[in-house]
């Protein structure tokens, strides 16, 4: 079996006050493994230890107890960073630089030769859709644009492991969708992605496996599909048929025969995100179109698995 990209053993972080007294247990004996080529999600409410875990993996914090390895190297070994790309929650980039200068700067930190830096910078600027704004200083960028250039800097070294802290935070639905698609693309390119988020729908959408933390303790850990599967319930979808009282009655009878009960039946609804995106796409396709009160916008399609 391949060596995990990230492995923690009893990883613990306790913050101390000035006098060395225990102030807060941020993480307690965390044991997780992240495998190559998967999208791994860290979930939990605020203060649960998600960001602390990421900071420990990156060497921004030192563990109080336990250990963690990233691609077989200790987290305090800076050489591990050669294969890591990191996007923090907020874009902590230098706002007096423009997009090109930013990528050139971070490229130099990876000791990339000038030709590689220039090529990758241009590719990434195009990939994150900032081609027209590459000469503007970042102070003039919107939050979404800063998040895009932040992601570009995380990819400048063509990393094997990408760590994303709240990647969709502060992004509009379009931006969030773009980010999620890009994360999936990264996985398809063979990269491993660790992301933490408290936007559950994002995590459910794209993560293969997750770990749920609460007050520094690992509460749940495994494949998303396994964790969410409810074996005591059955869901079915049907097409080419209309919902009528007769159909509902027949269904109830069938289920009773099998020892079950019909809880709900009705027409499915799409997600608000899908609906919003469709409206925007339609608006782009037909400029000048206005919504009139009473008009049914778009077409309700059954919500399907994406």
């Amino acid at each position, binding site marked *: 079996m391949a060596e995990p990209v990230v492995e923690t053993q009893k990883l613990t972080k306790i*913050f101390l006050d000035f006098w060395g007294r225990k*102030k*807060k247990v*941020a993480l307690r004996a965390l044991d997780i493994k992240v495998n190559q080529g998967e999208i791994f999600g860290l979930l939990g409410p605020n203060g649960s230890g998600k960001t*602390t875990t990421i*900071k420990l993996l*990156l*060497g*921004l*914090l*030192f563990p109080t107890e336990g250990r963690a390895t990233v691609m077989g190297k200790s987290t305090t070994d*800076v*050489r591990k*960073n*050669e294969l*890591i790309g*990191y996007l*923090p929650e*907020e874009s*902590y*980039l*230098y706002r*007096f*630089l423009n997009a090109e*200068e930013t990528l050139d*700067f*971070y490229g*130099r*930190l*990876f*000791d990339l030769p000038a030709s590689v830096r220039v090529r990758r910078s241009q590719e990434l600027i195009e990939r994150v859709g900032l081609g027209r704004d590459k000469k503007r200083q970042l102070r003039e960028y919107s939050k979404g644009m800063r998040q895009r250039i932040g992601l570009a*800097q995380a990819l400048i*070294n063509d990393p094997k492991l990408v760590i994303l802290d709240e990647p969709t935070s502060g992004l509009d639905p379009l931006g969030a969708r773009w980010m999620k698609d890009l994360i999936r693309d990264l996985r398809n390119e063979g990269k491993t992605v660790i992301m933490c988020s408290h936007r559950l729908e994002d995590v459910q959408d794209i993560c293969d496996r997750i770990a749920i933390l609460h007050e520094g303790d690992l509460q749940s850990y495994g494949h998303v599909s396994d964790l969410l599967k409810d074996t005591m319930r059955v869901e079915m979808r049907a097409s080419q048929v209309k919902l009528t009282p007769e159909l509902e009655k027949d269904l109830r009878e069938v289920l009773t025969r099998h020892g079950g009960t019909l809880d709900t039946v009705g027409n499915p609804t799409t997600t608000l995100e899908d609906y919003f995106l469709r409206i925007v796409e339609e608006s782009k396709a037909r400029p000048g179109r206005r919504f009139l009160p009473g008009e049914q916008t778009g077409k309700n399609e059954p919500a399907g698995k994406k």
Partner: protein
Amino acid sequence: MVPFMATSMATGLLDSMNPLLQPAFAVLSLERDPLTISRVLDWYAIRYYLLTVGSVTSLCLLLWFLFRGWKQVSRLSPGTKLAFTILGLLSLPMVGLDIFSLAQFTQPLWPNYDPEKTAPAAISAMMRPEWINDVLAFSALASILAVSLPFLLNLPRLSFRRIFAIAKLSFKEAIRKRVLYAFTGLLLILLFGSWFIPSKSSDQIRTYVTVVFWAMTVILLMVSALLAAFGIPADIKSQSLFLIVTKPVERVEILLGRLLGYMSLLTLILIVLTGAGLLYILRGVSPEAAEESLKARAPVYGILHYENTGSEREGDNVGREWAYRGYISGSAATPGSGQPKAIWDFTVLPSVLAGRPTVTAEFTFDIYRTTKGFENQGVGIGMAFTTRNYDAEKLRLERESRDREGKPALTTDELAEKFGYFQPAASITFYDFSTGSVEVPGKLFVNAQTGPEDKPPIIVTVTCKEITQYVGMARYDFYFREDDTSRGADALRFSWNFAKASMGLWLRILLVTTLALVLSTYLSGVVSLLVALFVFMLGQFQEFLLALVIGRVAGGGPLENLSRLITNEVAGKQLENTALNNVIMNTDRVLREFLGGLMNFLPEVQSLSFTEYVSNGFNIGGADLAANAIRTVAYLLPWLLLGYHALREREVAGPT
């Protein structure tokens, strides 16, 4: 401070004098020998340096071992562990010395302590046998290497591209954050300074040089301290540092990159300001000022001693508060004793002097009058130049023989070349604090080139010719000029000298920038700024601190002073011999011991200021500058090591 005082005092004196009495005023008050590279790289200097740095590194090793323990070492690779263990064991003598020194510092608090019988720690250190100091220096080196080991192991991984990237970022950051606006202050001084700077025509260059350097120093040092103190803390606060340390960047690369970036910017600014300052000073120079200061005298100094003053090392004390000069009177102190003399022995003379027809000797003495004398008339002094081959008896016989044979008297050149003797005039009149000069025949230097090795090549003897007056002199008040005086005013040499003074300022900028940067790796921006400036200022006032350490400050140490403040005792009065007073004075002794130890860690700031040289038209020695540069870099290396460890050991992220 002292050169500044000297200038103020002298300027005050000049103001009260008739302008006609100021043909020249080239006084360079020095209380130290210009540094030489051999003095800085001398084994004793290196050993002292190793012992000083080693005392801290060995203490750090001890504390690290006590608090972190062997567990940390056991995580190292086998090779590193072995190297660390060997170096750690070799450091043990220095650890022992640390413990011994700490115990010695507190000895005034021990029972049965007798200040008369117990030598202070610094004195007892000087009394150690040489071989013990050599062994300790070796141990100190081991402890320095042990502390530097992580850095040395990282060394092959350092990348200039990364350092340059961070340097470029720091450079851009400073420019785009409009730091350069601070220098408009200097522009204002240059634009409108002339309205407020009074100067006599002969003082024009001196005053302008002082003002320009003062402004440059204040603005550049403040900007460098601000830039360096806030760079890393701001990055930590804004979390921009997260994105740097999560790249394959060694922490020391951040430190070096920041230092390189700030120093590049400040160097560029310094070059521009030096150019602008020179243009400002050199526009419309009056002939008097050009004659006075538009040059770079290269003095050759001798060693001063006295005869018939009671002490060979000191002249008479006339009660001046500032005891820089020793005095000789015009008459014997006691009947039968000889006339007091000030004698300069010139042990090293540049060979170029022997090739010149004449060599200029310049002198600047102080007059202490016991009678009013004649208004606007100077005091007469006698001056004789002799070489190591001079034989008074031989010269007397030659003169007598010539008289008998009716031959013409010996010419000045003959006297100098054959007999090694030159006397300019029976009496030379000079004026208080003004520069006099004598043209000495070059033949005298030819004569001095060979002769008995046990005698100095040239001896200059000065006597006072007026019995009611005293003439005061310090070692640096008399010198031969190595530079060619026939060229007169020389704007090019002056400009180069001005640039060399800027290099001295550059070293001070380097000092402040590095200190602030190193401190900012652990402290907040404001605290780093204050501590860096405090250390710099302490370096500026080393003289006062030394006086405090050796107990020469009126009123005693801090606790004794506090006690006097409370009990309303005057400073000059001896404290009563009570139990409380003994505790106070002995605690002060402990504090003084610690302060004495602390003084080893203060920077040499005074010797990096060369304004006095330029303003008075004296050449700044290249060796002096180079030696100071070596000393400054050597001083900063342990600080950089401290910064490296502080940045390496700290968690750049916090709980949130």
